């Protein structure tokens, strides 16, 4: 851990003051209740709402940047310009149909947008979302099954005492989770439940406490020192 003795610039000092103030404000809100003087929780909730607005603006900047980069690709006819066209068409088509016909529709009661337009857009949005987006995302995630299979084949070897314990415990839990194995001998489920309830719980509790202490230390360090290093 290197100690950074460099003097803060004015901007860094200003940022550090904001970080410090807001961090301690949220800590104080949790422990101090003075509703007769000022409703700290209401102030905290309002600030959170402003943060949500800022995050939304960040998303908008992301969309603007993607559009800018890919429009430049198309204008200059770079090697992958056709994929840029596809990306922009998919991005804006999904956005437009979502604004008309999804649970996030801007005008679900058809006050401004004609009901015929909503009726026309709804099956298209449902097809794009349920038939394309959900299935594509699920398929990409399902590729993990093959990676897990090859990783298990390569990694689960009894090279040492600890790795043997890991191997045996892992196999017993997998057997306990396998429906057919459970039907053949209920003991697999009982062993799985014992492993999850005792050794696993003990280990997870240690990890949780360690992680919580680490987050506490990092947060305190972040509040008091910018830039951190």
């Amino acid at each position, binding site marked *: 851990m290197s100690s950074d003795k460099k003097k803060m610039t004015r901007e860094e000092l200003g940022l550090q003051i904001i970080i410090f103030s807001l961090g301690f404000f949220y800590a104080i809100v949790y422990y101090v209740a003075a509703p007769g003087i000022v409703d700290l*929780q209401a102030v*905290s*909730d*309002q600030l*959170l*709402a402003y*943060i*949500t607005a800022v995050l939304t603006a960040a998303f908008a900047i992301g969309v603007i940047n993607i559009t800018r980069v890919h429009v430049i690709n198309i204008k200059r006819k770079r090697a992958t310009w056709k994929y840029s066209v596809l990306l922009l068409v998919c991005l804006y088509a999904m956005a437009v149909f979502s604004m008309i016909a*999804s*649970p*996030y*529709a801007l*005008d*679900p*009661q058809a006050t401004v947008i004609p009901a015929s337009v909503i009726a026309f857009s709804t099956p298209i949005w449902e097809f794009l*979302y*349920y038939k394309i*987006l*959900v299935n594509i*995302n*699920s398929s*990409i*995630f*399902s590729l993990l*099954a*093959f990676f*897990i*299979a*090859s990783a*298990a*084949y*390569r990694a*689960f*070897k*009894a*090279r040492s005492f600890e790795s043997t314990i890991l*191997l045996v415990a892992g*196999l017993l839990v*997998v*057997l306990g*989770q*396998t*429906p*057919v*194995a*459970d*039907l053949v001998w*209920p003991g697999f*489920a009982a062993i799985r*439940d014992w492993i*999850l*309830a005792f050794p*696993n*719980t003990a280990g*997870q*509790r240690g990890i*949780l406490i360690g992680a919580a202490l680490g987050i506490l230390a990092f947060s305190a360090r972040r509040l008091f020192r910018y830039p951190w290093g």
Partner: protein
Amino acid sequence: MYLLLLLVITVPVLTHSVILVPISPTTQAVYNFIDKLPPNSLVVESFDYATSVVPELHPQAIVVTQQLFLRPLKILFVALDPNGPPLADAVLDTVNKGNRTYGVDYANLGWIPNTATEIGMISNIAQFLPLDTHGTSTASLPIIKEFPAVKQAAFVITFDDDSSALYSYLQYWQGTFNISVAVGSTAIQAPGYMPLYNSGQLVGVLISIRAAAEYEALLYHQYNCCLGISGASSAMLALSTAQFLIIAMVVFANVGYFIGRRSAKKVE
């Protein structure tokens, strides 16, 4: 190896065979809790998973929602993940709602955008979620007039793929108002929730698509219905064969490792 894995998954899926799986204690705990809720209790279902884990968590959501509709309960659908509201609509299109009416017995309130809304809903739902997913004012819905605040809820179940939603419900809803919480989780997340289950913070844990198959068996035994409603029971054979293949590959790899080690020692 990949081809073998593809075969052992695809062939059982194409046979559409159904296996009634033994029930694990964590799934039974959730089922029993919902079964024992007093009539007209408010239950909040939170859809907090992305489209990538739909195969694992969507079947859980279907079977739990079906049990909720089979009991005389009031249900609010919310989401801490932006993908939640359309997935909630998909579940509502799948289950048999009987004679329940939207707005009276259940409502889809949509996405909870931030923690301030999540905390504010505890005391006033209509103020912080003014419109439902149909654009209707939530204050005008009979279910919100009957239950204007989340603190009146008896139970919250979150289908969560990354634990952030679960921890926020435990922190803000259970911590202060002692609302019972359960979670539907992926297989990878489930071991991390065991401390919460064992300490009593969670009523139960639904683990992956197998919990959905167990739930279908429970619903079938009690209500003589709903077998195959989520497709989970027909996936159990494929799940079993795939897991057996992985176990076999691990055993085979270890046998090869020990044979190789013995050969190396002999050469020395």
